């Protein structure tokens, strides 16, 4: 478990975290807690963001102009900061997705051969 987490951490650092966030924002704006919940549930609990990593990451992505945050106030609720993908972000997402797919396919080709 420890080992897994450490490995995942490294993967996240290498950029997959960015890919995850950008993907989740592709179709609709979401707030931070929503993002963290989605990552956790959709990965079956395997991927989990630390609070102290998630929000700085969101800040960085926003700083690069890939996403844009906006405070949204609704009656009876506290205000929340929703993030949406920018045009630049969409470009990055497309390119990262390609890279990722190439990477996964490469891995798969190798592992499949080994198991055949």
């Amino acid at each position, binding site marked *: 478990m420890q080992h897994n987490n450490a490995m995942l951490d490294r993967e996240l650092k290498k950029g997959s975290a960015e890919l995850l966030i950008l993907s989740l924002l592709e179709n609709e704006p979401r*707030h931070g807690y929503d993002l963290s919940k989605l990552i956790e549930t959709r990965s079956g609990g395997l991927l989990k963001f630390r*609070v102290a990593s998630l929000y700085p990451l969101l*800040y960085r992505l926003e700083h690069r102009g890939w996403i844009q945050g906006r405070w949204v106030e609704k009656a009876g609720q*506290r205000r929340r*900061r929703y993030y949406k993908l920018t045009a630049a972000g969409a470009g990055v997402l497309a390119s990262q997705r390609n890279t990722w797919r190439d990477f996964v396919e490469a891995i798969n080709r190798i592992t499949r051969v080994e198991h055949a």
Partner: protein
Amino acid sequence: MPDWGRSVNEEMQQHLDDRYDELRAAGASHEEAVRATRAELDLDEPAESRKGADVRERSTRPASAAAVAFGVGDVVGDLRYAVRGLGKNPLFATTVVATLALAIGATAAIFSVVNAIVLRPLPYPDADRLVVVWGNLPSIHLQDIVVSGAEYVDFRDRSRVFDAIGAYDPAAFNLTGQGEAERLNGVVVTGSLFPLVGARTAIGRVLQDADNQPGRARVAVLSHAVWQRRFGGDPGVVGRLVALEGQLTEIVGVLRPGTVFAFGENEPDVWMPIVIDAELLSDNNRGSRTYTVLARLKPGVTIAQAQEAMNHVADSLVRDYPSHYRGGFTTTVRNLKGDILSDTTAGLYLLLGAVSLVLAIACANIAGLLLVRAHARRKEIAIRAALGARRSRIGRQLLTESLVVSTIGGGVGLALAFWAVKALVALAPADIPRLHEVALDGRVVAFTAALSMLTGIVFGVAPALQASRADLTEALKEGSRTIAGGHRVRRALVVAEVALSLVVLIGAGLLINSFARLQDVAPGFDPSHLLTFRLAPSTAKYTFEKSEQLYADVFSQLASKPGVEAVAAIDALPFSGYGGDRSFFLEAKLNPPPSEKPDEQVRFVSAGYFSAMRIPLRVGREVTPRDTLRSPRVAVVNEALANKYWPHEDPIGKRVAFDRQEPAWYEVVGVAGNIRHRTLDAAEKPELYVPYSQPLFQGWTARPMFIVVRTSFQPTSAAGAVREVVASIDPDQPISSVRTMEDRIGESLGRRRFNTLLLSLFAALAVTLAAIGIYGIVAFAVAERTHEIGVRLALGARPRHVLAMIVADGMALVLAGTALGLAGAAAATRVMASQVFGISATDAATFAVVTIALALVGCCACLVPARRAIMLDPVTTLRAE
């Protein structure tokens, strides 16, 4: 992106609240929800766990139950976190603890020694009022000399500034008839001396003024140690008669253990009264000076006032006894402690100065390390601050960490100091006064520990708090790599460390250089294969003639032993601590003005002394067995004396006498080489050697002599034969001070060896600390510039050039430090003028060699991290960004 910190803060608190609400909605208990929410933060520490509470306190919503639970911060948690944090970085923790421990240990140990010897009052009642009164004979340039019995009595009766006044004279007594004969260290005193030094008895009584009156029974007081050793602690010893110097003496008391009575080195074993009789006070004996005068000032009387009063007393003596004081007579009143310590303080203050510099270097080092650590943690701290942790909260956490390190360092340092004080006392030469009073001093330990902890707090917490105030954005930006202020401080610290260690190093270099030169000094005789001992025939048993026979028997029997090449004797052996001057007259100048009256070192020697010692004879012959009472009197002079009194004449055949009224002429028959008498670094003095068998005056008494035995084998193995021979001639005759000549010379170098050794240790410590400091700053700079270095390497920069760039950066600090250090050393080593020998305190060679050595060490400290930097793969380096 203004005010991002507050914005992210709000997002995070919402996140946590959401999490808590969700968990509760799913049926979790309050505690479970809190725990799970805490886990969400996963910053691995209790400090952060408070964050939720802090956040909520400032939240617009009313505080929830979870917020209260988050408030359970605790000291234990802080401690656990601190220990865990240090454990994660063992190199840092070890370096800080070791630095602290060494600095605290060394400083506390040296300061304990200085405090016990120099600073603490002497262990006597009203010690600050105790003074010594010395005599001066200005016409013959004699200062701080002991006084005669008559002069002491005049001081006592004519002065009005003292509460009490006493006199003493170190002596030695042969104890016989109590098992093996033994020569006991003793002192003859006035009864008034006991209350002066607060000495009291375990049994019996101390000596009293009445015991100094003539015609009283011979009495003595024993030390506790000798009472235990020689009399088995028998309480019946009071009233018993024992043979001291062959005369029956009644023991009247035994002093309490721990009575400190030593005015010099050796604690006396026996106290006997000075007999103040008509003989002692007679005109004849007014010039026979042997007593040291100790007095206690009346309350409110200053040394200056006492000096003024004693000037009047001295003037009255010159008026009343004009024939005795033709050349004048004055006194010097001096504080007892200052007097005892006069030649000890310089060396100790030198060591204290050096160890203080080491402490300063250590503090600078710790400061530098903590600054680096604080810098490395600035991100963590900034996040915590952004998460809402109050600065006081972060401060407490960091304080805890600093205190944990300081406490461990202090504890190890204390143990080290405890051990070091014992080692110092064991290592220190025995002639350092008050050495037995040295113990680890609690106040010193407290002071040093407090200082080191303060360093830890100031440099560990202050920059961290600064970081907590810093712009989070900056701190979090991966690319950010400058906190300029901290950087400048760190570089300044390294420069200071290099400068300070250069001062210590140069000091040590000067002492080592001096010591080496001193060891090369030839004493003027051959000290190898010489066994020496002292034989003191008691005057009660031995007339002068009988003593001559005793010595002759000892010589002949020892000389017949196999392996013994030569045996001879002298009253004041070189490096024995003995010596004495005497005035005489030149035949050509019988009535010199007082200021030109010859007064030189006069020694009594047996036949064959010069050949036994291998002192070269320049001209003429030495003393032979044919020089007796019945043959013409002869003398041998050394070159220094010959050059002083007969600079352009042949000294052979010149005559001197010791009594002008009825001169008995001693004819110079030989000129011997000069020798070093007291220490290797003292100038060679003029010396006049007279045969023991040709005494100066009628009614001459037996004199104690040092016997020198030259052997063809290891000289210590002759000690048994020596005891055997003396015991076979006179079983009641003890011998003492059995030592080889080489040991005596070695002991004379003791203080110097001690100071040199310690200063070298401190220098090594200083250099190590400075090297750690340089390494630390360069390694840190390299880490900070990883990206830049990667880019340079990727763009094709030669590794050699990158290496040079990094080393040059580090060496700039080293060179700045050396420049400052050289200036500092030039100023600081001036105080070492009295400690160097054969070189000046600003010896260029020493300065150069030490500076180059330090620069090399600095260069190595730069090279290690620099090499690591150029080994980096540029791609990895860049990806790390």
